[in-house]
């Protein structure tokens, strides 16, 4: 207990800033990643073989590549191609790409939960295919994927720890802890505090997700 008090008197503000940066990275990568994922999922429905092929390749690539490898490529290899990206933006871009691929994949499963009869009915009412997607398929698919999306945000929040692999200006939780552990011997308290912050953030996200799920669930 003493160790933790001492830790907070030495590094208290740093921990709060690290937690805020972790949250910021999570939100900054989830929101655009989610929107991009929806766009990819919808475009994948179009009857255009080249586009479908390219988007499938996109989803499979970013679903299967380790995020660290992607981050290292963006940060260290792209400058060789004369593409320079700010460290923080590189982290956000990495997580956003991964998030969009998983979102597109989950949405596809969500789209498949929509009963085909509904689509036939809508088409027979004279709705155009894209109208059907936007007005009937997508709203139901989005409601069906609240739970996997919640898990995805938590996974994304934990993945922000890979920001510790690049020299970011501010330190997020993992980077802060590894710095404290290298500087002083009293590492275990720092790990405990960071772990607690991660776990509590995860529980918070899960709680919000469950509340949303309860509200929008479709009873069949």
């Amino acid at each position, binding site marked *: 207990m003493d160790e933790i008090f001492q830790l907070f008197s030495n590094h208290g503000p740093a921990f709060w800033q690290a937690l805020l940066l972790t949250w910021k990275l999570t939100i900054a990568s989830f929101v655009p990643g989610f929107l991009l994922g929806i766009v990819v999922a919808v475009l994948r429905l179009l009857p*255009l073989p080249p586009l479908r092929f*390219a988007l499938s390749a996109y989803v499979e690539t970013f679903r299967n590549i380790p995020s660290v490898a992607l981050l290292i490529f963006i940060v260290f290899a792209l400058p060789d191609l004369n593409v320079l990206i700010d460290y923080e933006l590189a982290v956000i871009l990495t997580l956003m790409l991964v998030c969009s691929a998983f979102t597109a994949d989950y949405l596809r499963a969500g789209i498949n939960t929509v009963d085909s009869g509904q689509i036939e009915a809508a*088409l027979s009412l004279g709705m155009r295919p894209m109208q059907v997607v936007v007005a009937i*398929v997508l709203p139901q698919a989005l409601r069906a994927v609240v739970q996997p999306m919640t898990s995805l945000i938590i996974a994304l929040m934990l993945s922000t720890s890979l920001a510790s692999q690049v020299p970011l200006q501010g330190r997020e939780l993992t980077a802060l802890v590894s710095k404290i*552990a290298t500087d002083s011997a009293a590492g275990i308290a720092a790990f405990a505090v960071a772990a607690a912050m991660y776990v509590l953030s995860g529980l918070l996200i899960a709680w919000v997700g469950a509340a949303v799920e309860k509200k929008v669930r479709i009873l069949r």
Partner: protein
Amino acid sequence: MSRSLEDILFVAPSPRAQTITRTVSAIAAVVLFLLVLGVLFRFHSAGQLEAPFWKFFAWPTTWTFLVKGMLGTLASAAMAAVIALTFGLVLLLGRLSRQRLVRWPSIALIEFLRGTPTLLLIYVCFLVLPSAGIKLSTYWMLTLPIGLSTAAIVAEVYRAGVFAVPRGQADAARSLGMSEAQVFFFVVFPQALRYIVPALVAQLVIVVKDTTFGYVVTYGELMQNAKVLVANYNSLVPVYLAVAVLYCLVNYAISRVSKRFAAPVH
């Protein structure tokens, strides 16, 4: 339902719609092709297409080194998977226990392992344990944290499977006079496993991806060996591209295999 949603949405288009689709398809193909050309041009103008950056891929030593890295990745991933599957079962049994003294610590442990980033656990093994006098080899510094954090997730996956087994199965087994352990291990758990094969395989893909952190502890897996190659030939882009392709191929293969196993349960 045999027809996919895409087929129903765009069923029997009129000749006019067919022409439009074909034209747009062609335009999309051209645009994508131009995109690839643009990337290649970028490589060219940055001088990354020049022979010195690529020629070492023709040497067998490069590939043996990369394959060695791949084997290191698989060795770590396989052990981490074994730890996850067995320790996950222990955690599940703890979580399902009727004894509060067993159940609550199990829940706490699951939430802790599941809720902290694997990288943070790797740093614990890498930075904190040595100062406490516990020295692990680089292999275990990487494999143990991955195995443990995956075990917690696997425990939750198991639990979902166990709850998916119809209650009547356990009731029937009990009425035959089986002990609780027999009911679980001979009747409930084997059936639960069949429900969760896809989720377990998805977890295996994540394990393979997590071993990328091997370079943090300098364990010789694919990413670490790639770093060595980069240092030797000063050729970042080609090496990392090759490694990215290797990871994608392995993980894609794993998820494809899972689709085979994911046959209907009933």
